[in-house]
């Protein structure tokens, strides 16, 4: 898509509102990294919505901030409680109190040093545990959402199928063209027929595939299959509609097709 198309589509608005799917969001981020005008548009939308929220501000009660900071300060203070330096008992008086004092100071300094080091390690460990826990709950939440999403999509898909009575028919290759295959979707309500000719071999120059419906044992022209677009050679396309048919088939005909099939039949599928 062109940057202009993306900008005018409304997709960026949905993105800022958090209403795009994970995949769409990733695509938008990729596009915005490539095209500064998309990034600028996103920022403009963000600024607009921020402005909108600012204009509709409702000042919270002052206690909310106090409680909030109590919570935050307490959480960080919990970690700060230190263990006290162990007291070294001295049973007998030593010959010189100076040595005793020096030893005490050395022990105290050592103790402070270890306390400090272990406190830091303890804090780091605590931090990484809570980070991991958070990650775990986030992942569980994501998984849950994904499962719900998958279930919802399946339901929608089933509903669509029921609503439109779509009948997928596989047209299998004839014995002398066993690699060929095509798939059709037949909407029984409307009679619309779509074909996916992705597994037909390349049509030789001057030739074209023609689609047939077999009605009352006779082939009825179902239209020509377009296989010549440069970039994607084959694509799903709409054919002529059929109210009823016993079978569908594809033959290779001269360019433009024939009223009755003359060429070789490649694939066929019975209903």
């Amino acid at each position, binding site marked *: 898509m062109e940057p202009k198309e993306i900008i005018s589509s409304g997709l960026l*608005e949905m993105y800022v509102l958090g209403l795009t799917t994970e995949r769409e969001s990733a695509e938008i981020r990729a596009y915005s990294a490539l095209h500064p005008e998309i990034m600028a548009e996103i*920022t403009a939308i963000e600024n607009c919505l*921020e402005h*909108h*929220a600012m204009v509709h*501000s409702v000042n*919270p*009660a002052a206690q*909310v901030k106090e409680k909030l900071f109590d919570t935050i300060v307490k959480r960080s203070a919990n970690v700060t409680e230190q263990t006290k330096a162990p007291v070294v008992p001295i049973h007998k008086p030593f010959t010189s109190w100076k040595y005793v004092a020096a030893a005490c100071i050395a022990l105290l300094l050592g103790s402070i040093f270890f306390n400090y080091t272990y406190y830091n390690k303890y804090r780091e460990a605590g931090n990484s545990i809570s980070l991991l826990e958070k990650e775990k709950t986030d992942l569980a939440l994501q998984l849950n959402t994904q499962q719900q999403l998958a279930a919802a999509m399946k339901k929608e898909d089933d509903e669509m199928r029921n609503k439109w009575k779509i009948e997928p028919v596989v047209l299998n290759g004839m014995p002398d063209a066993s690699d060929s295959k095509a798939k059709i979707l037949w909407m029984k309500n409307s009679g619309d027929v779509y074909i996916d000719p992705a597994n037909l071999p390349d049509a030789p120059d001057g030739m074209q595939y023609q689609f047939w419906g077999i009605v009352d044992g006779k082939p009825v022209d179902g239209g020509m299959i377009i296989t010549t677009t440069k970039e994607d050679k084959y694509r799903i396309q709409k054919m002529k509609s059929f109210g009823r048919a016993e079978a569908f088939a594809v033959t290779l005909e001269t360019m433009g097709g024939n009223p009755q099939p003359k060429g070789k039949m490649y694939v066929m599928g019975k209903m």
Partner: protein
Amino acid sequence: MANSEQYSEEELVMQIRARNQQAFSYLYDHYAGALNGVICRMVDEPRLAEDILQEAFVKIWNNFDYYDSSKGRLFTWMVNLTRNLTIDTLRSKSYKKAAKISGDENSVINYQDIVHTSDKMDAIGLRKQVAGLKPEHQHVIDLAYFGGYTQEEIAKEIGIPVGTVKTRMRAAISALRKIFDHK
């Protein structure tokens, strides 16, 4: 805890990453009203709204490392986090969110009765202008921004195809941008 200090968004993000509570206090002073405004549009009980606001800021503080400035502005991240938290809270309390946001214009007027901001004059003027948006534009923004509706829910609520929601939203936000650009 009023701060006289001013931060750019970049500095603010850096300072809060470094666990600077002063910077976080500034963030609160700056954005609590706006986030609370969103919550108050979704929640009827003031006590519950305050609890959600507090919880939202605790989450913002604890999860700050997850904010990625390359994905968008800080406020966008905060408001999406707050909205999701509010929706989760309402769902867990088996609330129905439908009651609060309704299609009629009265919803805007009702809502304005409960607003008690200490805003400057121009905010009140702008709010009137926003209220003067076409109802169809107002409605689609309200559903997404203050209602936490998904694309499909918006389509169902307004009675338009899902494919049209994006273009409707584009038109609505463009109208809103005009108001803010021409002030």
